[in-house]
């Protein structure tokens, strides 16, 4: 495979050229982190399907050639994709660059929402133990690409005991361009002891253009902190989306993640949660709705490192056309993590005979006093239920839509932000419901 070698070499060359000008270049710890990452990428290369973790997902289209940084953009192209306005802080990036005219950052005592570049310039100290520390570049070549070359992103920092009432919204909007380009969003979420917040991260963009988004999010929760993190991915269905997110959850803290995957031709989301302190808990939920030839891969890893941890995981998928989904859910219980309680479920609804799911639970349990359960299902719309609905006068297409919604509702209803819940439900209607044949060949 000659092509990936060339690609990584070109990224390496770009790094050598630009390193002195990247944000945080003056910080020795960040410089080292970036150097490590680009060296890992150069020596390891991009993944192939010969690797177990990438067996069902061929990332070749996203790594066969290097993606250039985004082209310069005039402000005129921007506003159309901004979407509805929401209460609370919102920080919008257009093609990876901050868009102040699409952002609003109301003052919130005890909390700061800032671009990562600003944070690295002004007060980098809180970032040092987290940035580049939680998502290991060694294991994820696209995370290594982000770490070595990221130019901006966001920091949400909530101080001890502070509870943020309104959700913080981070928007990464990739607009169409004549040439494919890449964005490398980098997000750090820091919640100190007893802090609480809700953060919505949207990756979005209009159809058209095979852009690459390679995002990394790192989350550090202090003791007793609580974070609800909602990620909505609605990028161009021709694009590539890779996301590595890692969270470290201290004693008594709670992390809940809600992932909604609707866009991109190829997407891969790696979510790793370490329950590092006693009594820490996490709830991970996901919904993927795929059509045409879309491919979405969700890898989750929950590491129970300490006693009395609880994890709940529910991912649901609706697949139409020739789409393909991969779910890989790993639960690792370390020897000291006694009294762990973990439950993992993955359910898939196939609307087309050509759709395909690979689902794989992976339990590695090294403690003896634990409750760990998992289950996976792959099914179709129940013919008897469809007939029942039709026999009451409900047209077949409406009946199908109703059942798809019913299937997804468990996950949609759990999304803690009303407008995300509503737009997600609406997306299910407009995408699946409006196709009489469900996109089947």
């Amino acid at each position: 495979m000659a092509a990936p070698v060339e690609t990584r070499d070109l990224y390496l060359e770009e790094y050598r050229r630009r390193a002195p000008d990247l944000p945080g270049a003056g910080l020795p710890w960040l410089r080292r982190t970036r150097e490590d990452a680009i060296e890992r990428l150069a020596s390891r290369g991009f993944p192939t399907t010969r690797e177990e973790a990438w067996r069902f997902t061929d990332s070749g289209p996203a790594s066969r050639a290097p993606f250039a940084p985004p082209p310069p953009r005039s402000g005129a192209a921007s506003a159309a994709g901004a979407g509805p306005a929401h209460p609370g802080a919102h920080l919008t990036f257009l093609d990876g660059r901050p868009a102040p005219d699409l952002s609003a950052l109301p003052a919130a005592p005890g909390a700061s929402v800032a671009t990562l570049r600003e944070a690295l310039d002004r007060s980098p100290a809180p970032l040092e133990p987290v940035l580049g520390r939680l998502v290991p570049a060694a294991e994820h070549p696209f995370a290594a690409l982000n770490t070595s070359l990221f130019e901006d992103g966001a920091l949400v920092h909530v101080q001890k005991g502070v509870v943020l009432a309104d959700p913080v919204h981070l928007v990464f909007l990739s607009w169409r361009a004549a040439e494919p380009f890449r964005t490398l969003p980098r997000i750090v979420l820091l919640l100190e002891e007893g802090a609480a917040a809700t953060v919505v991260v949207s990756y979005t963009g209009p159809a058209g253009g095979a852009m690459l988004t390679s995002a990394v999010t790192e989350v550090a929760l202090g003791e007793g902190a609580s974070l609800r993190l909602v990620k909505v991915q609605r990028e161009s269905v021709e694009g590539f989306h890779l996301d590595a997110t890692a969270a470290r959850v201290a004693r008594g803290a709670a992390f809940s993640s809600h992932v909604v995957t609707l866009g991109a031709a190829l997407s891969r989301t790696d979510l790793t949660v370490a329950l590092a302190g006693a009594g820490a808990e996490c709830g991970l939920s996901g919904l993927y709705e795929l059509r045409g030839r879309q491919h979405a891969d969700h890898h989750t890893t929950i590491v129970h490192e300490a006693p009395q941890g609880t994890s709940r995981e529910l991912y649901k998928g609706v697949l139409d056309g020739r789409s393909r989904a991969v779910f890989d859910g790993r639960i690792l219980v370390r020897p000291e993590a006694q009294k762990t309680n973990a439950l993992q479920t993955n359910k898939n609804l196939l609307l087309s005979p050509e759709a395909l799911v690979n689902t794989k639970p992976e339990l590695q349990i090294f403690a003896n006093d634990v409750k760990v359960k998992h289950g996976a299902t792959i099914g179709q719309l129940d013919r008897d239920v469809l007939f029942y609905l039709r026999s009451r006068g409900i047209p077949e297409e409406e009946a199908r839509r109703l059942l798809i919604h019913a299937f997804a509702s468990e996950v949609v209803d759990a999304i803690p932000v009303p407008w995300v819940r509503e737009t997600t439900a609406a997306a299910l209607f407009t995408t699946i419901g409006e196709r009489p044949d469900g996109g089947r060949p």
Partner: protein
Amino acid sequence: MVAPLLEIRDLQASAGERPVLRGLTLSVRAGEVHAIMGPNGSGKSTLAHVLAGREGTKVTGGTALYQGRDLLALAPEDRAREGVFLAFQYPVEIPGVSNVYFLKAALNAIRRHRGEPEMDAADFLVHVRERARLVQMSEALLQRPVNEGFSGGEKKRNEILQMAVLDPRLSILDETDSGLDIDALKVVADGINALRRPDRAMVLITHYQRLLSYVVPDRVHVLADGQLVRSGGKELALELEERGYGFLAGNGSGGAGPGVTGPEVTG
């Protein structure tokens, strides 16, 4: 003379590959309640499924006209919107869809078809609550997912509630009495009686006579081996109760012959 609401002639149908209905003829007029009785395997449920348009049944001959139109040519949802209702022997559970949402979607689909405005949520709630009293359905059951975790009796009451809400012209009730204790049977029977109307017909498909003690039919038919072998007034049901289906063997001869099976054991 008014044309029949439902006119079935020489209907032949198979379930899967197996021929089940072998030339069934039946005429039902508006205002009438007909009972079709028969032993297991006689074709009762196949008849209900054919009339509702269920997959897995295949009409191989004969006709069924509803209001003078070819019923069998219509899609299931179109039959419903034209006023045909099937109460299921085994109502399905629909997790994630509330009973009240389901009823509203069904009623509005039918109203759109009739060219009537859709009912909004508030008006619909008033409407459905009033109908729910007919079958003693609680508010809690209205808000729960359709049939999920319902008892057998609650599921059958829910079928009658749907009939009450959707206001059909022709109702086919497939063994709505099976699996009910006496109290539930009375509730269901009261609901059915309350919905009898001069412009509405009902076909009660049943194995046992006991429902017919509460819902008195105008006509009783006996289905055996895919054909109606005998028809009569309500007293025929009592005769069947006393003598069992066995005496009817011999394709409508009406005489009891040696070696026929004994009375069906009720359970």
